[in-house]
C-alpha cells in the first residue's frame, strides 16, 4: 500500500511547515483530546504508587538523620 510512502513524506512536509509556522489554532475538542490522552499515560504511572525502593530510601535517610543528631 501507499502507507509506507505517504507517511514519511507527509511527515517531512509537516515538519518543515511546522518550523516556519509552529502555532496553529486548535479547537477545544482537540485540546481536550490531547489533555485526556496525556493524563491517561501519566496516570498509568502515577497509579503504580510508590515503589518500595523509595520507601526504603527515605526511611534510611530519615534513620541516619535521627542517629546523627
Amino acid at each position, binding site marked *: 500500500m*501507499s*502507507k509506507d510512502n*505517504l*507517511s*514519511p513524506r*507527509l*511527515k517531512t*512536509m*509537516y515538519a*518543515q*511547515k*511546522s518550523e*516556519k*509556522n*509552529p*502555532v*496553529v*489554532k*486548535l479547537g477545544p475538542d*482537540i*485540546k481536550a483530546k*490531547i*489533555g485526556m*490522552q*496525556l*493524563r*491517561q*499515560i*501519566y*496516570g498509568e*504511572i*502515577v*497509579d*503504580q*504508587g*510508590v*515503589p518500595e*525502593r*523509595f*520507601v526504603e*530510601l*527515605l*526511611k534510611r*535517610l*530519615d534513620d541516619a*538523620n*535521627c542517629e546523627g*543528631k
Partner: protein
Amino acid sequence: MGLRKNVREAMLEAVPSLRAFAISLCGNVDRADDLVQEALLRAWANMESFQPGTNMSAWLFTILRNLFRSEYRKRRREVEDVDGSYAETLTSLPEQNSRLEIVEFRKALKMLPSEQRESLILVGASGFSYEEAAQICGCAVGTIKSRVNRARSRLAEILSIDSASDFGPDQETRAVANSDIVRTDRS
C-alpha cells in the same frame, strides 16, 4: 525529627508524579527511577534550601529536571535514537483502537522538542500552574504558555498524519488534501 517526618511524607507523596515526569523526560523506566532516587537524595541533602510552606512537589520537580538536563547534555546521541525506533514500530498492526491511539500518542509525544514536551506535561498532566511550571523550568511564564501551545499544535499535526496512514482510505484522502494545502503554504 517531627519536621523530618513531615518532609519524608511530603516527598513520598510526590514520588508517583515525579516518576511519571521522569519517565516522560527520559523514556526509560529504569533510568527514570534512578533519576528520581538521585533527586530525592539531593533534595534531602539540601533540605535547608527548601522554604517551608512552598510547594514541595514543585521543588522536587525542579531538582529532578536540573539533574536530567545535565545528564541529557552528556547523552544527547542516545536520545536522538527515538526516531529510529519510531519508524520501526510503525509497521505493527492495530489490535485495539484506544490502545493503539495511546501508542501513537506516546510516539507523537516523543517527537516533540524536549522543552515543549516537558512544558505540556507539567501543565497538562502534572497539574502545575503556568507559574509553577515556569519556576520549575527556570523560564518566563509566557515561554511556558508558548511552548504548551506549540506542543499541542505539533501533536495535532503529527497525530492527524499517523491516523491518516493507519486507518484506511477515507482519512488518507483527507491527508492528501491537507498535503496540498501544505504545498501551497510552502511555495
